[in-house]
Protein backbone atom coordinates (compact mmCIF):
# COMPACT_ATOMS: atom_id res chain seq x y z
CA UNK A 1 0.00 0.00 0.00
CA UNK A 2 2.87 2.33 0.89
CA UNK A 3 4.42 1.68 -2.53
CA UNK A 4 1.10 2.36 -4.29
CA UNK A 5 0.83 5.71 -2.51
CA UNK A 6 4.41 6.56 -3.44
CA UNK A 7 3.70 5.63 -7.06
CA UNK A 8 0.58 7.83 -7.04
CA UNK A 9 2.67 10.66 -5.56
CA UNK A 10 5.30 10.25 -8.25
CA UNK A 11 2.64 10.18 -10.97
CA UNK A 12 1.11 13.39 -9.61
CA UNK A 13 4.54 15.08 -9.57
CA UNK A 14 5.29 13.74 -13.05
CA UNK A 15 2.02 15.26 -14.24
CA UNK A 16 3.56 18.68 -13.65
CA UNK A 17 6.36 17.90 -16.13
CA UNK A 18 4.48 15.88 -18.74
CA UNK A 19 3.55 18.88 -20.94
CA UNK A 20 6.92 20.69 -20.87
CA UNK A 21 5.32 24.06 -20.00
CA UNK A 22 7.13 24.43 -16.68
CA UNK A 23 10.43 23.65 -18.42
CA UNK A 24 9.76 26.31 -21.06
CA UNK A 25 9.00 28.78 -18.24
CA UNK A 26 12.22 27.90 -16.41
CA UNK A 27 14.13 28.31 -19.66
CA UNK A 28 12.54 31.76 -20.09
CA UNK A 29 13.71 32.73 -16.57
CA UNK A 30 17.23 31.65 -17.60
CA UNK A 31 16.93 33.82 -20.74
CA UNK A 32 15.85 36.76 -18.55
CA UNK A 33 18.98 36.17 -16.48
CA UNK A 34 21.08 35.96 -19.64
CA UNK A 35 19.62 39.29 -20.75
CA UNK A 36 20.31 40.77 -17.32
CA UNK A 37 24.00 39.81 -17.46
CA UNK A 38 24.25 40.95 -21.09
CA UNK A 39 22.97 44.42 -20.11
CA UNK A 40 25.47 44.48 -17.24
CA UNK A 41 28.26 43.50 -19.64
CA UNK A 42 27.32 46.21 -22.13
CA UNK A 43 26.91 49.02 -19.61
CA UNK A 44 30.07 50.89 -18.55
CA UNK A 45 31.28 49.46 -15.21
CA UNK A 46 30.42 51.71 -12.27
CA UNK A 47 27.70 53.57 -14.19
CA UNK A 48 24.57 54.50 -12.27
CA UNK A 49 22.40 52.11 -14.30
CA UNK A 50 24.84 49.21 -13.81
CA UNK A 51 24.88 49.82 -10.05
CA UNK A 52 21.10 50.03 -9.94
CA UNK A 53 20.83 46.78 -11.92
CA UNK A 54 23.30 45.02 -9.60
CA UNK A 55 21.29 46.07 -6.57
CA UNK A 56 18.02 45.21 -8.22
CA UNK A 57 19.01 41.66 -9.26
CA UNK A 58 16.85 40.01 -6.59
CA UNK A 59 13.81 42.05 -7.68
CA UNK A 60 14.57 41.25 -11.31
CA UNK A 61 14.62 37.50 -10.58
CA UNK A 62 11.47 37.74 -8.43
CA UNK A 63 9.64 39.75 -11.12
CA UNK A 64 10.63 37.36 -13.92
CA UNK A 65 9.60 34.43 -11.68
CA UNK A 66 6.23 36.08 -11.00
CA UNK A 67 5.55 36.82 -14.66
CA UNK A 68 6.50 33.32 -15.81
CA UNK A 69 4.39 31.70 -13.06
CA UNK A 70 1.38 33.69 -14.31
CA UNK A 71 2.20 32.65 -17.89
CA UNK A 72 2.56 28.97 -16.87
CA UNK A 73 -0.85 29.01 -15.16
CA UNK A 74 -2.46 30.64 -18.20
CA UNK A 75 -0.82 28.18 -20.62
CA UNK A 76 -1.78 25.18 -18.46
CA UNK A 77 -5.38 26.43 -18.24
CA UNK A 78 -5.55 26.77 -22.02
CA UNK A 79 -3.61 23.71 -23.18
CA UNK A 80 -3.42 21.14 -20.38
CA UNK A 81 -6.54 21.26 -18.20
CA UNK A 82 -8.95 20.67 -21.12
CA UNK A 83 -6.83 17.68 -22.20
CA UNK A 84 -5.70 15.82 -19.11
CA UNK A 85 -7.33 17.70 -16.28
CA UNK A 86 -6.33 19.95 -13.44
CA UNK A 87 -4.34 18.92 -10.40
CA UNK A 88 -2.81 20.94 -7.61
CA UNK A 89 0.04 19.25 -5.78
CA UNK A 90 0.26 19.28 -1.99
CA UNK A 91 2.78 21.81 -0.69
CA UNK A 92 5.93 20.17 0.69
CA UNK A 93 6.13 19.88 4.50
CA UNK A 94 7.55 22.97 6.26
CA UNK A 95 10.60 20.97 7.43
CA UNK A 96 11.46 20.06 3.85
CA UNK A 97 11.07 23.67 2.70
CA UNK A 98 13.48 24.82 5.43
CA UNK A 99 15.92 22.08 4.41
CA UNK A 100 15.83 23.19 0.76
CA UNK A 101 16.36 26.85 1.78
CA UNK A 102 19.26 25.81 4.04
CA UNK A 103 20.81 23.75 1.25
CA UNK A 104 20.50 26.67 -1.20
CA UNK A 105 22.16 29.01 1.32
CA UNK A 106 24.93 26.46 1.96
CA UNK A 107 25.63 26.10 -1.77
CA UNK A 108 25.67 29.85 -2.45
CA UNK A 109 27.77 30.43 0.70
CA UNK A 110 30.26 27.78 -0.40
CA UNK A 111 30.56 29.35 -3.85
CA UNK A 112 31.13 32.84 -2.37
CA UNK A 113 33.68 31.42 0.11
CA UNK A 114 35.45 29.51 -2.65
CA UNK A 115 35.79 32.66 -4.74
CA UNK A 116 36.71 34.93 -1.82
CA UNK A 117 39.20 32.85 0.12
CA UNK A 118 40.94 30.91 -2.63
CA UNK A 119 42.79 32.05 -5.68
CA UNK A 120 39.98 30.71 -7.86
CA UNK A 121 39.61 33.04 -10.84
CA UNK A 122 36.25 34.77 -11.42
CA UNK A 123 35.97 32.93 -14.75
CA UNK A 124 35.13 29.79 -12.74
CA UNK A 125 31.67 31.13 -11.99
CA UNK A 126 29.98 29.76 -15.17
CA UNK A 127 31.55 26.34 -14.51
CA UNK A 128 30.34 26.41 -10.89
CA UNK A 129 26.89 27.58 -12.03
CA UNK A 130 26.90 24.75 -14.59
CA UNK A 131 27.77 22.27 -11.86
CA UNK A 132 24.94 23.53 -9.59
CA UNK A 133 22.46 23.39 -12.50
CA UNK A 134 23.70 19.89 -13.34
CA UNK A 135 23.17 18.65 -9.77
CA UNK A 136 19.67 20.18 -9.52
CA UNK A 137 18.59 18.86 -12.94
CA UNK A 138 19.99 15.38 -12.22
CA UNK A 139 18.15 15.37 -8.87
CA UNK A 140 14.88 16.35 -10.58
CA UNK A 141 15.46 13.64 -13.19
CA UNK A 142 16.07 11.05 -10.49
CA UNK A 143 13.20 12.17 -8.23
CA UNK A 144 10.63 12.22 -11.03
CA UNK A 145 12.09 9.48 -13.22
CA UNK A 146 12.63 11.85 -16.16
CA UNK A 147 15.60 10.73 -18.30
CA UNK A 148 15.59 13.96 -20.38
CA UNK A 149 16.67 15.87 -17.28
CA UNK A 150 19.88 13.81 -17.15
CA UNK A 151 20.66 15.00 -20.67
CA UNK A 152 20.00 18.61 -19.65
CA UNK A 153 22.17 18.08 -16.58
CA UNK A 154 25.15 16.98 -18.70
CA UNK A 155 24.50 19.85 -21.10
CA UNK A 156 24.50 22.40 -18.23
CA UNK A 157 27.88 21.10 -17.09
CA UNK A 158 29.30 21.16 -20.62
CA UNK A 159 28.01 24.71 -21.31
CA UNK A 160 29.37 25.91 -17.94
CA UNK A 161 32.84 24.46 -18.54
CA UNK A 162 32.92 25.58 -22.20
CA UNK A 163 32.03 29.17 -21.25
CA UNK A 164 34.53 29.14 -18.36
CA UNK A 165 37.47 28.02 -20.51
CA UNK A 166 36.58 30.47 -23.30
CA UNK A 167 37.70 33.26 -20.93
CA UNK A 168 35.07 35.82 -21.90
CA UNK A 169 34.66 39.15 -20.14
CA UNK A 170 32.98 39.17 -16.76
CA UNK A 171 29.15 39.17 -17.05
CA UNK A 172 29.36 38.32 -20.75
CA UNK A 173 30.35 34.77 -19.71
CA UNK A 174 27.29 34.48 -17.46
CA UNK A 175 25.08 36.01 -20.17
CA UNK A 176 26.26 33.29 -22.55
CA UNK A 177 25.89 30.56 -19.94
CA UNK A 178 22.31 31.48 -18.99
CA UNK A 179 21.29 32.04 -22.61
CA UNK A 180 22.76 28.68 -23.61
CA UNK A 181 21.12 26.71 -20.82
CA UNK A 182 17.87 28.68 -21.25
CA UNK A 183 17.68 27.86 -24.97
CA UNK A 184 18.45 24.17 -24.29
CA UNK A 185 15.73 23.90 -21.63
CA UNK A 186 13.18 25.75 -23.80
CA UNK A 187 13.91 23.46 -26.77
CA UNK A 188 13.52 20.39 -24.56
CA UNK A 189 10.24 21.79 -23.18
CA UNK A 190 8.93 22.60 -26.67
CA UNK A 191 9.63 19.03 -27.84
CA UNK A 192 7.80 17.62 -24.82
CA UNK A 193 4.90 20.03 -25.38
CA UNK A 194 4.65 19.05 -29.05
CA UNK A 195 4.55 15.35 -28.15
CA UNK A 196 2.01 16.01 -25.39
CA UNK A 197 -0.33 17.95 -27.71
CA UNK A 198 -0.01 15.23 -30.35
CA UNK A 199 -0.66 12.35 -27.96
CA UNK A 200 -3.35 13.96 -25.79
CA UNK A 201 -6.44 15.08 -27.70
CA UNK A 202 -8.86 17.63 -26.33
CA UNK A 203 -11.41 16.04 -24.04
CA UNK A 204 -15.09 16.74 -24.65
CA UNK A 205 -17.04 18.86 -22.23
CA UNK A 206 -16.82 17.53 -18.75
CA UNK A 207 -19.72 15.56 -17.37
CA UNK A 208 -20.04 14.78 -13.74
Amino acid at each position, binding site marked *: *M*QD*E*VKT*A*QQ*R*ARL*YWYRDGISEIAFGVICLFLGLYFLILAVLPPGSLLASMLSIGMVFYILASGYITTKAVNAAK*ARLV*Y*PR*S*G*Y*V*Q*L*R*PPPTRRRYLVALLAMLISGSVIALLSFTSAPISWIPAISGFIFAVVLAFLGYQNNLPRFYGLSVLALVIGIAVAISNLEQNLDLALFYTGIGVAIILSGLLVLRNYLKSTPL*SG*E*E*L*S
Partner: protein
Amino acid sequence: MSPDWNDLSNIDRLIHEPARLIIIATLYVVERADFLYLQGETGLTKGNLSSHLSKLEAGEYVEIEKTYQGKIPLTICRLTEAGRKAFEAYRLHMRQFVEKTTPE
Protein backbone atom coordinates in the same frame (compact mmCIF):
# COMPACT_ATOMS: atom_id res chain seq x y z
CA MET B 1 -3.12 -18.42 16.85
CA SER B 2 -6.08 -17.92 14.57
CA PRO B 3 -6.43 -14.40 13.19
CA ASP B 4 -9.16 -12.19 14.58
CA TRP B 5 -11.53 -12.08 11.61
CA ASN B 6 -13.60 -9.45 13.40
CA ASP B 7 -10.74 -7.09 12.61
CA LEU B 8 -11.71 -7.22 8.96
CA SER B 9 -15.43 -6.82 9.56
CA ASN B 10 -14.68 -3.45 11.18
CA ILE B 11 -13.01 -2.20 8.02
CA ASP B 12 -14.25 1.08 6.54
CA ARG B 13 -16.43 -0.19 3.70
CA LEU B 14 -16.79 3.22 2.11
CA ILE B 15 -13.05 3.16 1.37
CA HIS B 16 -12.67 -0.60 0.94
CA GLU B 17 -14.51 -0.72 -2.39
CA PRO B 18 -11.70 -0.89 -5.05
CA ALA B 19 -12.85 2.02 -7.25
CA ARG B 20 -13.33 4.32 -4.24
CA LEU B 21 -10.01 3.17 -2.81
CA ILE B 22 -8.26 4.24 -6.03
CA ILE B 23 -10.07 7.61 -5.98
CA ILE B 24 -9.13 8.24 -2.34
CA ALA B 25 -5.51 7.11 -2.86
CA THR B 26 -5.25 9.46 -5.85
CA LEU B 27 -6.71 12.40 -3.94
CA TYR B 28 -4.58 11.61 -0.88
CA VAL B 29 -1.35 12.60 -2.65
CA VAL B 30 -2.63 15.87 -4.16
CA GLU B 31 -4.17 19.04 -2.78
CA ARG B 32 -7.10 18.92 -5.21
CA ALA B 33 -7.85 17.58 -8.66
CA ASP B 34 -10.59 17.89 -11.23
CA PHE B 35 -12.89 15.24 -12.63
CA LEU B 36 -10.87 14.80 -15.83
CA TYR B 37 -7.62 14.20 -13.97
CA LEU B 38 -9.32 11.67 -11.68
CA GLN B 39 -10.83 9.93 -14.66
CA GLY B 40 -7.41 9.61 -16.33
CA GLU B 41 -5.72 8.40 -13.15
CA THR B 42 -8.38 5.92 -12.06
CA GLY B 43 -9.43 4.62 -15.48
CA LEU B 44 -13.09 4.76 -14.44
CA THR B 45 -15.90 5.77 -16.77
CA LYS B 46 -17.57 9.16 -16.24
CA GLY B 47 -20.70 7.56 -14.80
CA ASN B 48 -18.79 5.26 -12.46
CA LEU B 49 -16.51 8.01 -11.23
CA SER B 50 -19.41 10.36 -10.71
CA SER B 51 -21.37 7.77 -8.74
CA HIS B 52 -18.42 6.87 -6.47
CA LEU B 53 -17.57 10.52 -5.91
CA SER B 54 -21.15 11.18 -4.83
CA LYS B 55 -20.91 8.36 -2.27
CA LEU B 56 -17.63 9.70 -0.96
CA GLU B 57 -19.11 13.19 -0.78
CA ALA B 58 -22.12 11.86 1.12
CA GLY B 59 -19.72 10.18 3.57
CA GLU B 60 -17.95 13.56 3.95
CA TYR B 61 -14.65 12.08 2.77
CA VAL B 62 -14.52 14.23 -0.36
CA GLU B 63 -15.48 17.85 -1.04
CA ILE B 64 -16.70 18.69 -4.52
CA GLU B 65 -16.72 22.21 -5.91
CA LYS B 66 -18.32 22.99 -9.25
CA THR B 67 -16.77 25.91 -11.05
CA TYR B 68 -15.93 27.12 -14.56
CA GLN B 69 -12.65 27.51 -16.45
CA GLY B 70 -13.78 29.99 -19.07
CA LYS B 71 -16.84 28.30 -20.54
CA ILE B 72 -15.80 24.76 -19.58
CA PRO B 73 -17.36 23.32 -16.43
CA LEU B 74 -14.80 22.15 -13.91
CA THR B 75 -15.49 19.79 -11.02
CA ILE B 76 -12.79 20.14 -8.42
CA CYS B 77 -12.47 17.39 -5.80
CA ARG B 78 -10.42 17.32 -2.64
CA LEU B 79 -10.09 14.94 0.26
CA THR B 80 -11.51 16.32 3.50
CA GLU B 81 -9.57 16.04 6.76
CA ALA B 82 -11.96 13.24 7.75
CA GLY B 83 -11.26 11.46 4.44
CA ARG B 84 -7.52 11.82 4.92
CA LYS B 85 -7.68 10.41 8.46
CA ALA B 86 -10.01 7.60 7.37
CA PHE B 87 -7.61 6.59 4.59
CA GLU B 88 -4.65 6.58 7.00
CA ALA B 89 -6.65 4.48 9.47
CA TYR B 90 -7.64 2.12 6.65
CA ARG B 91 -4.03 1.65 5.60
CA LEU B 92 -2.98 0.92 9.17
CA HIS B 93 -5.89 -1.48 9.64
CA MET B 94 -5.06 -3.40 6.45
CA ARG B 95 -1.35 -3.53 7.24
CA GLN B 96 -2.03 -4.93 10.71
CA PHE B 97 -4.43 -7.47 9.29
CA VAL B 98 -1.94 -8.62 6.66
CA GLU B 99 0.83 -8.88 9.29
CA LYS B 100 -1.42 -10.97 11.53
CA THR B 101 -2.41 -13.32 8.71
CA THR B 102 1.04 -13.76 7.17
CA PRO B 103 2.44 -17.19 8.07
CA GLU B 104 5.82 -16.99 9.88
